[in-house]
């Protein structure tokens, strides 16, 4: 097998044993990127020079016998809404086309401290608003399994980079499914951690009460390894939670016998493609052979999750994106002093933001404005209370909840981009985990005509270990990590 398809963990072992140099590994990935990037467009920025420099530093440390980190020499792709010091960070937007952060996000400090090699910044829907990576100012990313189809979004570049062998690990962010959706469409593993487990410091905000940075990889083991590195309380993020440091790798092994699984009927109901439902149930039947007990049950409140999610996310977006005023950073409409503050502000945003961002700012402003605040914004916050309560009840009966990640297979580029509501409806099964803050993982459970299908496992807060353990065992049972797209 080609080096670029190996699991991150194996590559690290080869680097540590000096069978391979970190520099060679990075060089191999740089060449792979050169070979396939024209077709895939997973990256907005490729950091070849910085990556090779870092790889050489790692090699030096190893030769000298110095201690190296757990990600030593591993090329990692980072979503372009995570701030990287001295590396352009665009959020997939024209407004930040030339923005170079003067500081690192906490997760970046953490992966660099573990000697990871940042290979590039990945493409994404503008400000993480989208389900297809088509709203990026830098053009769409293509699904490596079928270049005429979308990779999912908004972390589509991170997922596609993994699926195309352009990185061994990736960081994404998930506000309403933005890690799990592209992980599902690209046939990789992606985890949205419990809200507060991973620091959001340096993540450029879209809807800060929902979003989390999370790990993406081709194998569950690698995903667990990356989560172990990035998890943990951070004084710079007041919403991060103090949790004991633990290894998510050490808890992977174990039997699933006696595990109680709940399948919410609403997650496999109206609007879910038959092929997807079948793949999910086929998977659950396989689990049954390993002593897992499952039951369908009804969670009617889930019918209200999507509007509650969108109304709050858009409201927060309208507020968060007010910082883009063309003064401190970002695009500014050129004027020779004849235009006043409001004109420059309004025109900079007119030219700097794309259609979906504008739509959400307007709708969010509406939901927060006098007369609609109670009807929409407050109503949504109350709906969360109800959803949370029903989830807590469900987790008294079941260890985990399982359903499809995406209700449909990866669709064609441009197929839905002109119909915003149709795109929002694709998030129907992913938003509940963001509304309730619980951890949720997506991993491949089947294929249909060469396109990956993903299953989603949700667990109670801070039970990432449980979601990873199930994914790890499932991967062994199903063996989907063996399949690679032809590019």
């Amino acid at each position, binding site marked *: 097998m080609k080096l670029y398809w190996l699991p991150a963990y194996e590559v690290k072992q080869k680097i540590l044993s000096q069978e391979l140099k970190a520099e060679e590994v990075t060089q191999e990935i740089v060449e792979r990127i050169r070979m396939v990037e024209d077709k895939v467009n997973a990256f907005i920025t490729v950091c070849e020079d910085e990556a090779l420099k870092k790889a050489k530093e790692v090699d030096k440390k190893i030769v000298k016998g110095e201690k190296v980190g757990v990600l030593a020499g591993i090329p990692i792709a980072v979503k372009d809404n995570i701030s990287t010091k001295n590396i352009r960070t665009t959020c997939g937007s024209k407004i930040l086309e030339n923005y170079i952060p003067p500081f690192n996000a906490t997760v970046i400090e953490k992966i660099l401290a573990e000697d990871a090699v940042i290979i590039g910044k990945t493409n994404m829907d503008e400000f993480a608003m989208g389900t297809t990576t088509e709203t990026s100012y830098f053009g769409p990313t293509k699904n490596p399994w079928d270049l005429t189809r979308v990779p999912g979004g908004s972390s589509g570049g991170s997922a596609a980079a993994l699926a195309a062998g352009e990185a061994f690990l990736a960081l994404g962010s998930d506000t309403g499914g933005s890690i799990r959706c592209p992980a599902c469409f690209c046939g990789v593993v992606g985890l949205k951690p419990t809200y507060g487990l991973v620091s959001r410091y340096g993540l450029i905000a879209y809807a800060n009460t929902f979003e989390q940075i999370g790990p993406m990889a081709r194998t569950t083991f690698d995903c667990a390894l990356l989560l172990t590195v990035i998890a943990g309380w951070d004084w710079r993020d007041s919403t991060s939670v103090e949790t004991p440091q633990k290894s998510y790798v050490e808890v992977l092994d174990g039997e699933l016998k006696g595990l109680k699984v709940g399948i919410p009927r609403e997650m496999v109901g109206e609007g879910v493609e038959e092929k997807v439902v079948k793949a999910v149930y086929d998977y659950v039947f396989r689990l049954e052979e390993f002593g897992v007990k499952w039951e369908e049950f009804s969670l009617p409140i889930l019918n209200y999750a999507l509007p509650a999610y969108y109304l709050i996310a858009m409201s927060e977006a309208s507020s968060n994106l007010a910082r883009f005023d063309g003064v401190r*950073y970002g695009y500014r409409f050129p004027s020779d002093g004849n235009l006043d503050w409001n*004109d420059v502000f*309004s025109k900079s945003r007119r030219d700097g933001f794309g*259609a979906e961002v504008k*739509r959400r700012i*307007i709708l969010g402003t509406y939901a927060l404005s006098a007369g609609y605040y109670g009807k*929409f914004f407050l109503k949504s916050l109350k709906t*969360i209370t109800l959803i949370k309560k029903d989830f807590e009840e469900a987790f008294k009966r079941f260890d985990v909840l399982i359903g499809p990640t995406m209700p449909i297979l990866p669709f064609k580029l441009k197929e839905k981009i002109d119909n915003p509501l149709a795109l929002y409806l694709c998030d129907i099964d992913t938003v509940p985990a963001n509304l309730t803050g619980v951890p949720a993982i997506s991993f491949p459970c089947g294929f249909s005509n060469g396109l990956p299908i993903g299953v989603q496992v949700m667990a109670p807060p801070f039970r990432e270990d449980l979601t990873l353990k199930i994914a790890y065992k499932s991967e062994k049972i199903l063996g989907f990590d063996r399949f690679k797209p032809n590019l």
Partner: protein
Amino acid sequence: MGEKEKHISRSQVEHLAWLARLELTEEEKELYTQQLNEILEYFNRLSEIDTSNVPPTYHVIGKVNVFREDEVQPSLKTEEALKNAPRKRNGFFEAPKIL
């Protein structure tokens, strides 16, 4: 008010765009009025549920205020802070005229 302006009118869209300091083209105003009405029609299903005695959830994990000592910490140097400014002058951000 026509069917396509059931929830939100074109003049409301114009007003919201002004509040958000987001200039829209005529085509955008037309398109957004139509799309936002479709979206709001769907969102309106929230009115089906009774939330009269339900408190709102502001934070999913239930954290409240977090305090720390207010200590002086190193911060960005002026040139670093200004590095990304589209216009600057004499160590300051240059803002458009306000009055």
